[in-house]
């Protein structure tokens, strides 16, 4: 077996691109909160790079991609601290291989961004140290098992199609966000007071970086550098563009004004919906998924207004909803050869996968939050919440220039 330097190059690049998504997410979320919480919100993303970055190397890869124990969880003591995988090789067919450590790093980035995604649901109101505990526990108890089940040889592997993590990442994070938002309750003053984004300019650039990074996310998930990779990139691009265009049209009809936050919300909805499907659909299918995701997310957000809960940055409303839509919807638009078990069976697999992810993520998330809340409290004190996370918890101010130097 020889190393395929081309595929290795693309996988290295994809790893860098997916890493770029975390600062991108920090910008996206950071711009949407109020000024007094901008740093704290960005730290939710950056601290995930630190905590989960270490956790993944120590134990995560072993749990997700170690030898499957009864289909429930992976384990290989030689995988701890990446001992064995550091020098391993991963066959990619055709007597070619890539270094296993590249795959480890690529997957590690997914583990980092998933808990960071959740943080948008309870933005502006949690204790930072409890948050750190939460993401560590959640990744250990929810993400690693789910990744193992669907990708790592667990009991769902080979059943549900989940090309780049619609179920493992977006649905699980979306549901966890919803549960956390409901458990923790609304921000003080929500929805009575208007809570406007402190820096939409920043949010838009963040969305741009997310789009760029998503090419690594989806096209990297093919573990190749060939037609399949190009196709994954193409449908990602097309779904994002269609999602954005659709959201613009909906807004134009509904409001007569097209907003910048609308465009980027459409981009995200399209990107999330195509994530599980990036290996299974043709361009027209990507358009259907992108457009559909925008429509359904738009109305999901309207529904949230009515229900009045405070999923602050719409983690469930975008990632959860578009993730579910994409995972199930792909069955209706996939290429004929994308499944070997036929439409109905595949639909069943997809619904099963989604259902399990929802139930499992909801249950374990609730448990984790409940325990952390008992031990050290999860929600900020009202005084700290009013003063803002940045000053109260981190002793900093995001925009020094607004005040005087």
């Amino acid at each position, binding site marked *: 077996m020889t190393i395929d330097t081309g595929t290795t190059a693309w996988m290295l690049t994809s790893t860098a691109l997916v890493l770029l998504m975390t600062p991108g997410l920090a910008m996206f979320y950071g711009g949407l909160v109020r000024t*007094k919480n901008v740093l704290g919100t960005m730290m939710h993303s950056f601290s995930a790079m630190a905590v989960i970055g270490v956790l993944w190397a120590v134990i995560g890869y072993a749990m997700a991609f170690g030898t499957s124990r009864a289909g429930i969880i992976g384990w290989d003591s030689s995988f701890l601290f990446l001992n064995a995988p550091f020098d391993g090789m991963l066959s990619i067919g055709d007597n070619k291989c890539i270094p296993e450590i590249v795959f480890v790093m690529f997957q590690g980035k997914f583990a980092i961004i998933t808990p960071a995604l959740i943080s948008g649901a309870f933005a502006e109101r949690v204790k930072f140290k409890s948050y750190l505990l939460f993401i560590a526990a959640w990744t250990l108890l929810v993400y690693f098992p789910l990744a193992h089940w669907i990708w790592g040889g667990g009991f769902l592997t080979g059943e549900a199609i989940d090309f780049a993590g619609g179920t493992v990442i977006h649905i699980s994070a979306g549901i966890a966000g919803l549960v956390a938002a409901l458990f923790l309750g609304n921000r003080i003053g929500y929805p009575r007071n208007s809570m406007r984004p402190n820096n939409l300019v920043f949010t838009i650039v963040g969305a741009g970086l997310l789009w760029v990074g998503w090419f690594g996310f989806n096209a990297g998930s093919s573990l190749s550098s060939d037609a399949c990779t190009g196709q994954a990139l193409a449908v990602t691009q097309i779904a994002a563009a269609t999602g954005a265009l659709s959201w613009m049209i909906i807004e134009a009809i509904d409001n007569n004004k097209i907003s910048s936050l609308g465009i980027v919300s459409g981009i995200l909805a399209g990107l999330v919906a195509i994530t599980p499907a990036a290996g299974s659909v043709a361009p027209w299918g990507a358009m259907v998924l992108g457009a559909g995701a925008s429509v359904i997310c738009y109305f999901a957000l309207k529904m949230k207004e009515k229900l009045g809960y405070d999923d602050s940055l719409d983690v469930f409303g975008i990632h959860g909803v578009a993730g579910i839509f994409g995972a199930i919807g792909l069955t209706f638009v996939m290429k004929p050869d994308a499944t070997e078990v036929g439409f109905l069976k595949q639909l069943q697999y997809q619904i099963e996968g989604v259902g399990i992810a929802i139930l499992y993520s909801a249950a374990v998330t609730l448990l984790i939050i409940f325990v952390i809340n008992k031990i050290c409290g999860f929600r900020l004190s009202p005084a700290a919440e009013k003063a803002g996370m940045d000053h109260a918890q981190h002793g900093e*101010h995001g925009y020094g220039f607004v005040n005087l130097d």
Partner: protein
Amino acid sequence: MKLITAIIQPDKLDEVREALIEAEIERITVSRVTGHGKQEDIDIYRGRKIVPNLIPKIEIKIACNEEFVEQAIQAIISSARHNGGELGDGKIFVTNLERCYRIRTGESGGTAI
């Protein structure tokens, strides 16, 4: 007519506005300022504690007729306090307002407030 200028803590803005509205004072002008008084507010910079010289505050300006002055002041004092009064809670200044015009209509005096 009087011009009331209140300096308050930023996190109290919403509460003060609500208290003013209850006191039937709906028109106000608000701006960001920074202040220096008795309060200290510690920030951290690479492990070092720094005491900024100037702390962010909010300034509220209210033009009102004499009969509203007292209730405006009471509304602000009671809503802007942290736990019954802490350092940095702020000040209220009252000056005399000689004339007032509404640009929209050009009218002036007490009805233009």
